[in-house]
């Protein structure tokens, strides 16, 4: 059954939301969701790469010879990743320093690669654009939810833009464990469990 264009977009927000349902792109999900700013910064970077690489790969899908398609996909994805990297260096250097290695690592992130292979190489440009945008936004939302939860409980503050905003009075006891690496695994596990309960009808 063919999906409508709207469904192509919205599936990324719930039914195929990348880290929780597809369980893809977990490396940055675990590593950088310690502040909200990092999370949506990463999400926006991935959304950009995903949308543009999807469109371009879809446009070139009849030209790219099947035997070398993976190489071609990687070149396209890597190009957009470097675009993001340069733009971030030029305009949001502080965020670039915090996300560090995870920006170049978008190249080997399974989401852009997976969508290129599984979707953009088989569908038209409009559908591919909507698919990329939807999944990218879904990824951003997922990271932000996880980061909000972790940061509030672990530090009692939330970083929306550069400076953290303290939410509670001095009586709040920060639970630092959640911004450490093991805390990330536990939070992700809880989120996956929650998604499974919600998805069970």
């Amino acid at each position, binding site marked *: 059954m063919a999906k409508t264009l709207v469904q192509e977009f919205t599936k990324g927000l719930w039914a195929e939301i990348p880290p929780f349902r597809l369980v893809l792109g977990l490396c940055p999900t675990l590593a950088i969701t310690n502040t909200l700013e990092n999370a949506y910064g990463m999400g926006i970077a991935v959304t950009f790469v995903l949308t543009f690489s999807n469109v371009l790969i879809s446009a070139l899908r009849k030209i790219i010879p099947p035997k070398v398609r993976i190489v071609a996909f990687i070149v396209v994805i*890597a190009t957009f990743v470097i675009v993001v990297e340069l733009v971030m260096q030029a305009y949001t*250097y502080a965020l670039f320093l915090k996300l560090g290695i995870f920006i170049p690592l978008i190249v080997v992130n399974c989401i852009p690669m997976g969508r290129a292979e599984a979707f953009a190489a088989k569908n038209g440009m409009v559908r591919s654009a909507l698919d990329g945008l939807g999944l990218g936004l879904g990824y951003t939302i997922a990271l932000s939810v996880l980061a909000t939860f972790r940061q509030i409980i672990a530090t009692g503050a939330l970083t929306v833009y550069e400076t953290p905003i303290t939410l509670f009075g001095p009586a709040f006891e920060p639970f630092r464990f959640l911004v450490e690496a093991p805390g990330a695994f536990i939070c992700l596990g809880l989120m996956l469990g929650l998604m499974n309960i919600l998805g069970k009808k």
Partner: protein
Amino acid sequence: MREIIYMVVVLTGISLASGGLLAALREGTQERIDQQVLEFVKGPSVRAVFKDAANDPIATRFQLKDGPTVRTFFVGEIEGAFRGVALEAAGKGYKGEIGLVVAIDTQTGNVIGINVTTHSETPGLGAKAKTDPAFAAQFNGVPVSGPAKVTKDGGSINAISGATITSRAVAGGVSNAFTVYERLKPQIEQKLKEIRK
């Protein structure tokens, strides 16, 4: 055979387009990125050595050719005059280079302050060159006429205990800055005059 040629042509085309786009973007963002690197990487150190300066030393800067290299100098306004210059230098540490910013008062010919920008020294030992302000503070007021030396080498700088190589490297780096300063002194003073106007 035809298939192979086709694959090569397509991949070459994609790579060429990608390379062209990135080169153009690199060209376009270069200046802003350099600015950001100055601000975030060297900025804290330059501001630290010029903590009493009345101006923004990052914004007041000039470049001079020193042989094949181009050096950046940051200017600090001290006691109402643009007389402080900070330059970058490096010394060979225990594990790789130690990057330094050295600020010199052009009127008295003494060091205003030094600050370590980058290093890969041992945490807790050599890393104190950056984290322990008392070590760096020993360089304040040292005259640029002679090389800075640790006490073991007959100088005035007390080495960080357990990190003689690091301490020597910092002293050596500071001395390198002195040599550069002495070599370029006429040009530096010329530039400072232009800034005063």
